[in-house]
């Protein structure tokens, strides 16, 4: 027993020694509160933010909430006590983190919202692609695909949501369905893949293809769900192109599916640009300087900063990835981070 305990503590001590980075001179430490690391977008966001913030002189530390609101609230409380230069928050729950944001700002720590917009309380800066807007872009693509297949915008769409407790997927659904209302001949069947788990999505697709064999288009709210959807279609004897597929977030697996001909469209979240925008404005955020509204160039994407009731907000448009543009290195799913250095906005 003693030996086991000694071995465990030894391993832990070694791990801490190896994983703790050496102290580096920087403009300050910024904490990134990532909601989970169980999906590729979030993992990618950590490395992208780290890369760009380093270029603008900041050291970044990441805390993973493991998709738990209460864990993220506790993390926020802990980080406030550490008095960092700023906090970047991608909230697990948009509303539940409101008191934590207010507490941080009351303690003089600026808070930047990343990827997940919180409108119920002011923050110092917000960088989003807009989840509702992703739904809009997806609806535009669905319109095109259905029209090309059926001659007019009609048919049956299976929408595979993520976890119904995640506002991210609910917002995409809201945007998608809001725009699709204009087409009464399109029937949308929406079902959740609990906990964003791929095999749940596979089961939904397998069941629905039997119950509704006339489904024209499957829209999954994440690329990894499309992988399982494709596996189910393949098991049912379908070939690429038999059923149209679309997903959102632009993960590498989605881009691979486009190359293989299974996926028609992937609506990208511009991860690199979203992260670069945070780094570009970090000096202003930390120094509490005014961020002027207007058009900005973020990694070649035209982005708009607006003054909202919840603070300055930059919205970077998500792009539709198809077979024609899938190899564009600007898409984060191609895993080629920009080589140009990000500079702080003067």
């Amino acid at each position: 027993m003693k030996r086991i305990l000694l071995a465990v503590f030894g391993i832990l001590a070694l791990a801490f020694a190896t994983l703790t980075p050496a102290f580096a001179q920087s403009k300050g430490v910024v904490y990134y509160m990532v909601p989970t690391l169980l999906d590729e977008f979030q993992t990618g966001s950590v490395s992208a933010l780290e890369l760009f913030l380093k270029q603008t002189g900041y050291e970044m530390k990441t805390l993973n909430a493991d998709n738990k609101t209460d864990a993220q609230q506790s993390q926020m409380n802990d980080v406030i006590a550490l008095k960092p230069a700023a906090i970047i928050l991608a909230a697990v729950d948009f509303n539940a983190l409101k008191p934590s944001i207010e507490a941080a700002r009351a303690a003089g720590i600026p808070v930047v919202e990343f990827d997940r917009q919180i409108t119920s309380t002011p923050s110092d800066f917000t960088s989003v692609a807009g989840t509702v807007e992703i739904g809009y872009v997806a609806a535009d693509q669905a319109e095109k695909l259905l029209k090309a297949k059926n001659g007019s915008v009609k048919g049956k769409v299976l929408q595979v949501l993520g976890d119904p407790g995640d506002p991210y997927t609910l917002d995409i659904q809201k945007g998608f369905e809001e725009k699709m209302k204009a087409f009464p001949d399109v029937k949308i069947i929406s079902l959740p893949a609990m906990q964003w788990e791929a095999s749940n999505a596979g089961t939904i697709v397998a069941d629905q293809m039997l119950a509704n064999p006339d489904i024209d288009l499957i829209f999954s709210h994440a690329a990894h769900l499309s992988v399982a959807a494709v596996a189910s279609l393949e098991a049912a004897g379908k070939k690429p192109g038999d059923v149209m597929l679309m997903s959102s977030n632009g993960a590498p697996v989605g881009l691979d599916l486009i190359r293989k001909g299974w996926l028609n469209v992937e609506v990208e979240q511009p991860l690199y640009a979203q992260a670069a925008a945070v780094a570009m404005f970090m000096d202003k955020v930390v120094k509490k300087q005014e961020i002027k509204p207007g058009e900005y160039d973020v990694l070649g994407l035209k982005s708009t900063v607006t003054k909202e009731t919840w603070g300055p907000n930059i919205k970077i448009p998500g792009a539709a990835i198809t077979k024609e543009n899938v190899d564009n290195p600007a898409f984060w799913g191609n895993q080629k981070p920009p080589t140009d250095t990000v500079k702080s906005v003067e």
Partner: protein
Amino acid sequence: MNPRTRHALEFVLDNLVWFMLLFVLVVFSIFIPNYFQLGIFANIIEASSVLGVMSIGLALVIIAGHMDLSVESVAALSAMAVGILFCSSGIGMGVQLHPEWLMVPVSLLLALAVGGLIGAFNGYLVVKVKMSAFIITLASYIWVRGLVLVISGGRSAQDLAPAIRWFGIQRLIGLPLTAWIAIACFVVFSLIMAKTPFGRHLVMIGGNETATFRAGIRVNRNLIIAFVLAGAIAGLAGWLLAIRTSGASANLGTGFLFNAFAAVVIGGVSLKGGVGTLPGVYAGVLLLSAINTAINLMGLPANFTLVIHGLLVLAAVLLDAFKQTIRQRLA
């Protein structure tokens, strides 16, 4: 009550979960459009294959009077290990073996070995170091999922080698081979539990560990074997999961543990140990899968899915409790 009625009643009670399954299938077939078709029934069996296999290992440990909360994470780690080695996209290394069919036994052995090792680790700490199975396997549930995240870096492996993926595509009498693997597992382990000294000893240990020890049965050895088996079977579930989704993502299998527990309990295994059979567990798994399929086909608002799922499971467990009451009256 005459002996024939009593015998019939006992038969119904012994197989109540199968009757519940039949009842549920009939009701769903009548009231849910498109439910009644062979393809849907095949889907129910296919969708239950991973959960079914995972439930076997869990049931073995519970029947032996212990607990294994790590099975879900073990399955995910095995799936990720297979995915990383044998997938060709994402983080997959695209390892090729010649002849190609070799990839099947190698990937299977890898999955079983990963699971078996973690099972042995759990078993050693529970049986030899006398630590609580609940705590040890809860810790494993957490650190093993963490290991999945570490080795994958949060990314996914996609495009499993066709030789392995073949099991998910090929069908025998309308069912994918993965479903047949699950059925075969249930048959083999049901026989082991019913016909071998090991199976009978596990039930005895779960019923009364001290008495079993005093009867000269090697309790520790049997318990460690049960934990190793639970781990290895979870590894097999992970292998099936990778086949089913043609790869592995870091959150693969999330939530399976609670469904496996529900299936085991609905299947008549007592959480106190010493009671339960594997055919009952399989019926429990099929029942859950039938309910999931019904929810999928009904197209209910997403927010209600978990509530309905939970209530139906509760109803099944209450029915099981009712069964115990009747059985006591019969005794």
